[in-house]
């Protein structure tokens, strides 16, 4: 019995190490100068920081960070607000029409954004949204809304209706009842939505690469990819840039991992 337990413990450690290999390589590569031809497996000999400085300057990561933070923060706020608002009537007043609307909102989940890339791109160009943060924010909000409405509606369904009725007996209007009583109760699912949307938007490449083409509007992933095609041989810079771009989200993950894991997985249930 004891022996098998030790074997299992060893197995989990081996698995963990294997899964960490890519991250280990990312770190060793980002701390080595270009002319250091030693194996990527070996740790760097000195603490060489120039890759980070160069990546920051050459890929204009400072601007990209500002863009990323701005786009992610506004998208998350809008998704939470619009999603919660939309879910309230869908959860509380299930007329036949609203049931249909719920299905309509949820069904948008089956349209992978890339399949409508051509018309969407044309449309964004036509309305003057190319390279504009507001356009990409609206796109992120739209494509994150279906799962958000799904999660919020499900959660509001579990809040007893008596609460609404009691507040209305006290003379509250439906709107203030929603903002003052229901909204504060949505905290747990709001955390889920924030993590889900935040990670999606922060990491996005497939939208940003099309709609944010000018270098001032680049987000981190777009800045890194144009940087990578320019300096294919300078993997140290690319690694340093990748590490910097992922660091904020890795740190958040390590502190809030419980919320990340349950949040991102409940987003998975959308299938």
């Amino acid at each position, binding site marked *: 019995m004891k022996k098998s337990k030790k074997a299992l413990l060893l197995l989990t450690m081996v698995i963990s190490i294997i899964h960490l*290999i*890519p991250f280990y390589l990312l770190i060793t590569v980002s701390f080595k100068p270009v002319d250091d031809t030693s194996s990527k497996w070996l740790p760097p000999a000195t603490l060489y920081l120039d890759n980070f400085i160069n990546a920051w300057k050459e890929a204009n990561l400072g601007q990209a960070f500002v863009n990323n933070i701005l786009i992610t923060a506004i998208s998350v706020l809008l998704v939470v607000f619009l999603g919660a608002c939309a879910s309230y009537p869908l959860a509380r*007043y299930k007329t036949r029409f609203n049931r249909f609307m719920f299905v309509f909102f949820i069904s948008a989940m089956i349209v*992978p954004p890339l*399949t409508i890339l*051509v*018309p969407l791109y044309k449309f964004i160009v036509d309305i003057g949204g190319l390279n504009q943060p507001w356009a990409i924010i*609206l796109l992120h909000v739209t*494509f994150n809304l279906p799962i958000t409405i799904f999660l919020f509606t499900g959660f509001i369904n579990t809040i007893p209706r008596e609460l609404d009725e009691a507040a209305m007996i006290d003379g509250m209007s439906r709107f203030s009842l929603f903002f003052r009583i229901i909204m504060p109760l949505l905290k747990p699912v709001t955390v889920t939505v924030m993590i889900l949307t935040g990670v999606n938007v922060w990491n996005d490449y497939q939208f940003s690469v099309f709609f944010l083409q000018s270098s001032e509007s680049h987000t981190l992933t777009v800045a890194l990819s144009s940087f990578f095609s320019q300096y294919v041989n300078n993997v140290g810079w690319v690694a340093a840039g990748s590490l910097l771009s992922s660091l904020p989200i890795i740190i958040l*993950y390590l502190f809030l991992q419980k919320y990340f894991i349950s949040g991102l997985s409940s987003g998975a249930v959308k299938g």
Partner: protein
Amino acid sequence: MDTEVRTQIQFVKKGLRRKKISSTVWLNVMYLPALLLFIVFIFYPFFKGLQISFTNWDGFSQTYDWIGLDNYKRMLHDPNIGTIIKNTLIYGIGSTLFQNIIGLAYALLLNREMKTRGITRTIIYLPVIISPLIMGYIWYFFFQYDGGALNDIILLFRNTPLNILADPQWNVWIIMFVNTYQYLGIAMVIYLAGLQTIPRDFYEAAQIDGASSWQRFKHVTLPMLMPSITINIVLNLVGGLKLFDVIISLTKGGPGYASQSLSTVMYKYYFASMDAGYAAALGNLMFVLISVISITALIYLRRKEIAG
């Protein structure tokens, strides 16, 4: 509660209900902004895309001609379409298979009480939060020809390094592997949650009946996990079939068309070949492929859930 109070409450409730009907319509105003976004950014483009696919639009001119079904006919004769669809299916079905097998194995392992459980779960899940584009770059350092980490090991055994990312036979599988590595954490977590819902008595009863551990897995664990299996399979299918970022960062779809999927080739036709009509048609093909495969899988698995 005495009856008088109860009738009073009933009375108030009735009044509220009457009031409710008149203000329900007003409350629907709350979903109008979301509805507007959906119509403008999903439904309008979706139908516009159908329209563009019947034209020879180049992506920037003001004019174009209607060419009927020519773009769809062209697909049938496209010499690369076979490779592209095959790759898309490998990314979709291949990653689904591996994510589920490995994810389930990890979940079974971590479902036991042990000290390293939490940390192992954290590590396996870590790649999920990284941008897939960046995940591709990280693995590029591993697989790259010149000084790649894999080749450092290969060179210990043979004289020539592998150029695996440029090898059409291999690179598709490498991309599938990277996608699997990145997202198997989600499958694992969903299976772990599913395993927690299986009552212990089921296993005890099976043990009393003399079931071997394989029989217990087959007749207790698997059927009880069916809902988790459904979610994982459908989710991974959709994720893999629309894969884009990892392909761009590892091979850009090359060499030639060797590792292109529908999503990357559509991008290429639109922006590099200025062939927007054909790109729109490919987008529609991708939409049909993804919905048919995922909905079929969903219906099939849901039926199995009920039957099982």
